[in-house]
């Protein structure tokens, strides 16, 4: 996880890191800009809380429950997940975002969580 945070801190894409339960344990500076909060302000956030911060919806405009977010799928089902959804930022603007989430599983099968990378479509 230390290495993952280092990697995330140097990449320019918004990156969120969650633990095995989907709780948000770290996000980098580009993610802070997207979220509207600094990591020092929020600290660890449970999935049910941070998953709703941007009111995610699917293509039909239906709300997406936290457990359907790609990062939750990656963390809980231990497989990569990719999806496109709409979120409302703190500026009130609705954005179409593609989220790619990959599980962080070690070579001896220890499951640490997942990382999600956001792209504004």
């Amino acid at each position, binding site marked *: 996880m230390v*290495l993952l945070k280092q990697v995330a801190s*140097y990449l*320019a894409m918004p990156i969120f890191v969650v633990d095995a339960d989907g709780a948000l344990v770290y996000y980098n500076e580009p993610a802070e800009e997207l979220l509207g909060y600094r990591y020092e302000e929020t600290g660890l956030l449970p999935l049910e809380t941070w998953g709703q911060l941007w009111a995610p919806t699917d293509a039909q405009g239906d709300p997406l429950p936290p457990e359907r977010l790609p990062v939750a799928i990656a963390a809980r089902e231990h497989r990569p997940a990719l999806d496109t959804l709409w979120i409302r930022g703190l500026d009130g603007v609705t954005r179409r975002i*593609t989220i790619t989430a990959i599980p962080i*599983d070690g070579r001896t099968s220890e499951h640490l969580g997942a990382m999600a990378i956001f*792209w504004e479509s």
Partner: protein
Amino acid sequence: MAQKPIELILLKDLVSQLGYPVIMVDAKGTVVYFNEPAERLYGRRYDDTGELPMADLGQQNAPLDENGEPLPVEQLPIMVALRERRPRQGRLVIHDVEGKAHHINSTSIPLDGQGGTLLGAMAIFWETDRK
């Protein structure tokens, strides 16, 4: 050989510790690293191949698309992700050195460094149960 960007260095160290196959290419599409699970999938060791063009790695493993048609290198999800600078997911079939077919899901993401620099791309492979 010039030092790799720090982002790729750290990512390589991370990828080397993951339990599923991952390959990394640089901004030119050269394969700069693939981890141990990827070595088992390809049946080749990175220490033996070193860096190599994606075309060489792809060609030797005869990738096929979902319909069983040969998949040109430029259509591999990782190369599409690199070229179009967007994530790409796809299903493909690759063959190891013994000719055994592996049905895999590939999730590929471009890697952007600070200042908008394109560093490369990485692909995570997941074998499906489909035969």
